[in-house]
């Protein structure tokens, strides 16, 4: 299998996960779909920079997170139509939403660490590779997030 085949297969198999993360950041199905498409396109375009196919997950998520963050910034400088940021009617209300909502309300950089750690079950090292921040920054954001969420820190693995 060529590098391109491995990458394509990884993308096709994990697309639902990409969408979930993009949606959790952008909170709008259309924006999330666009972000996934853009990230997939960039990934294949820059496949030359994927040195180790074993690390494809953190390599791809880094592109995806950058795309989502860029979309957020882009949104910041255009005036959105009011309905764009309202949850659409198809959006389902989570059954037990208290913690979900509080995670969503976290500042973006802290929320990202929490989501990657607990929803995507990534190691802090992977999160550090994805966000481009060093391990200590990631740790401090994780603790800051947990503190804000008032979740007990007992049993939180650091690696």
């Amino acid at each position, binding site marked *: 299998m060529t590098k*391109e085949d491995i990458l*394509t297969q990884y*993308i*096709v198999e994990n*697309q*639902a996960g*990409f*969408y*979930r993360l993009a*949606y*959790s950041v952008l909170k709008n*199905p259309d924006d999330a*779909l*666009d972000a*996934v*498409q*853009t*990230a*997939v*396109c*960039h*990934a*294949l*375009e*820059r*496949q*030359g920079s994927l040195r180790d196919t074993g690390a494809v997950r953190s390599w791809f998520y880094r592109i995806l997170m950058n*795309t989502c*963050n*860029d*979309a957020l*910034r*882009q949104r*910041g*400088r255009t005036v959105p139509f009011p309905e764009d940021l309202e949850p659409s009617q*198809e*959006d*389902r209300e*989570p*059954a*037990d*939403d208290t*913690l*979900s909502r509080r*995670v969503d309300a976290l500042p973006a950089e802290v929320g990202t660490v929490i*989501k990657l750690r*607990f*929803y995507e079950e990534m190691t802090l090292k992977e999160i550090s590779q994805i966000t*481009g*921040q060093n391990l200590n920054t990631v740790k401090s954001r994780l603790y800051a997030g947990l503190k804000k969420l008032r*979740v*007990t820190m007992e*049993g*939180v693995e650091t690696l």
Partner: protein
Amino acid sequence: MKEFGNAKENYDNTPIPAGLREHVQAGIQMGKANYRRQRRRTAQRWIATAACFGLLLAGLNLSPSIASAAANVPVLGGLFQVLTFVDYSKSEDGINYDISAPKVETESSLAEKVNAAIQEKVDQHLAKARQDWDDYREAFFATGGTEEEWGSREMDVSIDYEIKSQTEEQVSFVVSFAESWVSAYEEHYYYNLNLAENRELTLRDVLGEDWVVACNTAIQKQIAESVDASGFTYFFAPDKGGFTTVDEDTGFYIREDGAAVVCFPKYSIAAGAAGNVEFVVQ
């Protein structure tokens, strides 16, 4: 972390829209195509450089063997006398330029006009790219972005062209302007020139007096055929910004077999996932 159990369950149950697969497929195709194009361009540049050295050393007219070799290089083709390109790559202020703009090399008012029009678009495109990049960087830091997060962000700006067809008398080519950073943005301009008569060709020249009806019929038929079993199509309905009719400004090129191919930019008549859409009108 038991507390996260429910939150993770909510997250895992995020509804996945039916359109995800199409978006992912479109991304894969676009990404693969762009990757191939970059690689092909590197090869082309090499061939072009080699060909130029050949010319410098021997001169095309003096060396029939080089002339025939150059004519066989697919990129340069028989257009050697007609189309050349201004070709350069450089990186400056975080922008990677990859420019390959065509220039018509015949002594005629048509060539002058077309070259001036292309040059104007090139200048506009480069100025717009620089402005977009400055705005983006400014907004990035103004909204709390840090140097660390900015990292090694870069913008790719490219201008490329493709010769669609060429005969003794006429040439049809498309010039693509692209910017790629937060989102990819691409514009295409189509040129169909009759060199013998020193003028630009129109759809009327290719399809005859009934060109509007011919185009509209073919396009409407192809849009209707694109609707799948579940009633889904990328094309917008005519009353929702979709296709209504072609006009003098509609872009087109002439295929090798002489057929006209009518082109619409991304988003103009169909969802972004469909990209630029093209219709063959026989």
